[in-house]
């Protein structure tokens, strides 16, 4: 087929020393002629020439995609001109590439776009890598500055901190800053929802009590941290760096225990190592992430769903009834264990909240 094209082209290029040219037209209307070998390096042009027979003369010039403007076209032609020569060694090609992509980022973006529309994969890879190198290691502000990106995310959207292992100091710093901002926001919310906050505080102290009781009784519920513990609960466990008070830790452990009892019942049948692990992952996804906002470093209390709260409430009631009679004596025993737990905290709130709780029922 190319021979047919050659035969057609020959009479027209008799003045051009037997070199065949291909005619290209950019979106703005300007027409250029390019040496055949060079142009055919681009798969898209190659396709046009061979499949449709275009490009042999000025009249049937190949119209290039809109993303290819004349400036980019000349760059691409330079690139093709070098690389289509088979004689160059790999070293030479590499050094040419390195010099070639030394341009400002805007042109780099345009070049990527143009090369992509011409399906010139090596050049797309080259420019993409260069852009990746530019993005690498820079802070978001710097990147926005370089690429003139609009800063259009709302404060809330930005405040979903990137939850990574905190080995990247940059991200850690960002997280701390965002955590501070978030706390401020939460403070404002707290003022609005004062009652809800208090209830939460109550829950916590009650559950602390629960853990005390459970730990002391050699827990009748038999809630020990099981292996199929849900990852998210443990994650929140780890991330709760705010109060490393052992009481809180125990509280979480118990929560985990409770959760795992509930969840293992559901998930227990499915084995991690079994077939269809992807479906497991999706289940996990449903359970762990009620919404995408779960990336928050939010309070654990926020994410306890209602059903679980009710269960905890019921259990607390049971214990309350059982222990109500000999409460003062039990309290003395617990205090005398002498752990790092702060007994004062318990006696104050424990009694008070317990009473309050039973009253609210």
């Amino acid at each position, binding site marked *: 087929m190319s021979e047919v094209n050659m035969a057609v082209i020959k009479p027209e290029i008799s003045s051009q020393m037997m070199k065949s040219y291909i005619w290209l037209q950019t979106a703005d*209307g300007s027409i250029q002629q390019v040496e055949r070998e060079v142009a055919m390096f681009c798969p898209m042009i190659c396709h046009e020439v061979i499949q449709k027979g275009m490009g042999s003369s000025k009249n049937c010039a190949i119209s290039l995609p809109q993303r290819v403007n004349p400036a980019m076209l000349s760059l691409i032609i330079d690139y093709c001109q070098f690389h289509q020569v088979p004689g160059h060694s790999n070293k030479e090609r590499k050094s040419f590439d390195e010099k070639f992509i030394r341009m400002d980022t805007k042109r780099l973006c345009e070049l990527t776009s143009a090369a992509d529309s011409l399906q010139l994969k090596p050049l797309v890879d080259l420019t993409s890598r260069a*852009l990746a190198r530019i993005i*690498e290691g820079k802070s978001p502000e710097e990147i926005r500055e370089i690429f003139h*990106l609009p800063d259009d995310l709302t404060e809330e959207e930005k405040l979903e901190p990137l939850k990574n292992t905190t*080995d990247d100091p940059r991200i850690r710093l960002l997280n701390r800053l965002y955590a501070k901002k978030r706390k401020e926001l939460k403070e404002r919310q707290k003022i609005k929802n004062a009652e809800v906050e208090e209830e939460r505080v109550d829950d916590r102290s009650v559950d602390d009590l629960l853990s005390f009781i459970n730990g002391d009784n050699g827990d009748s519920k038999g809630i020990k941290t099981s292996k199929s513990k849900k990852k998210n609960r443990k994650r929140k466990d780890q991330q709760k760096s705010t109060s490393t008070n052992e009481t809180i830790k125990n509280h979480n452990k118990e929560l985990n225990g409770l959760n795992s009892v509930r969840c293992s019942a559901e998930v227990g049948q499915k084995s991690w190592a079994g077939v269809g692990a992807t479906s497991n992952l999706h289940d996990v996804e449903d359970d762990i992430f009620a919404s995408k906002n779960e990336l928050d470093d939010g309070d654990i209390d926020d994410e306890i769903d209602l059903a679980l709260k009710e269960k905890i409430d019921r259990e607390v009631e049971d214990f309350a009834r059982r222990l109500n009679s000999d409460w003062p004596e039990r309290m003395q025993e617990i205090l005398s264990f002498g752990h790092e737990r702060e007994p004062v905290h318990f006696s104050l709130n424990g009694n008070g909240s317990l009473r309050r709780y039973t009253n609210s029922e």
Partner: protein
Amino acid sequence: MFDALFTHFLLLLPMANSAIQEINVSSKIRRSSDEEVRIDGISRLPDVLIQHILSFLSTKEAMATSILSKRWLPVWTSVPVIDLQDSPSCRTDSSLRLRFEHFVTRVLILNKMACLDKFCLKFNMVDRPSCVETWFWDAVSRDVKELDITIHGTQSFPFLKLPFIVFTAKTMQVLKLSNGVELHVTGTVSLPCLKVLHLVWIKYSSNESVSRLFAGCHVLQELVLRKYVSDNTSISDVSIQTLKILSIRFATGRRKHQLKINAPILEYLNLEDNLGLEFDLEDVSSLVEANVSVTWLENRHIPLLKALCNAKFVSLHWDWHSKMTWHNFRPHRLFRNLVRLELSVGYGGWNMLSLFLEISDNLQVLVLTKNDNCRGLGLECRWKPQKNVPECLLSSLERVEFKGYEEVAYQLRMVKYILKNARVLKMMDICTNGDLPLESKVDVLKKLLMFTRCSNACQLRFN
């Protein structure tokens, strides 16, 4: 940059079109307008291209782009590459390790792509293998093309056994395993697309694990093995019909180990052996390039040298040698195709040079190096040239390089001999050691220039 900006801006104006029919890009049209139009270039790229760009970054960096602007928020979840690495402090801190495990799971869940191109993980010890196995299940079910796992474990920590699903991955083309992995293959392996396999310092549960793995790779082209002393194998049987590139490095010490190679279309061999390695090279007849580095050159290497006879480029490097019995080696197998020979000699063994010169009739380039490992040793040897000048010196040798020239008598003899007899020599390149003081360098150069040269076109380059 400003000019480009303006030119670009111009092209957007409709009235400019007629004015720039045959625009020549190099001519810059300046406008006096001071408007700096801040055009967001990168966000105009289609999503696919941005994902392509982000695929060259580590996943953490890609995630960091999600807070750049609204448009960038979801982009990182569609990048088909997951490249994660934990921090060095994870080695000692188990809570950090756990955190990393959670993090990887979350990334896998959030990543939307149904097909992954690359899944690359570098992390410290595995606390919960079940969690890690889940990752592999997910990657394989997403048709991952490249799997690259490195676990910086310690010997005391149990090595991770990959779930068998990894060995039946239909789309996997590249598999690289490093360090804290144990290769435990029990069933029939089926890796129909695997072209590249790297097994670096991993443990094996048995010799059969490896052979079963190789048996399941029907299009394997590149194999890189790095073996160490206590990895539970005593035989390395590389019988792969499709193999083109083989690179093996043994650090097995004195332990007896057998290397068997049967690769009929092998083109490139890179071998670093150790003491106690036995060679059984059945078929490497299409070898083009071979780089062999041995610690102690002795009789057990004769089969190896025999096998290299078809190669075009050979590089041989040894530290020590012991007397070799050559009677069954010479010269019925000639190095007919050898074009470039590089010898890096440690403590003696320069007789090999005569041997090689004798049997390589078409040698064009000869590079002789004094092995750095044995610097200062073997300062003298009784090398004497053969009576019959080798064929290659007469007809084909064009270029000789001497590296690490130390102004020792036998080196002088060699240079003299070559210069005297090489008829078509074009370049003799001599590089001295850095230690030589300048005056002695000048002396050496004078001496060298005095030697008679058989070839008129010969140039002497001294460094």
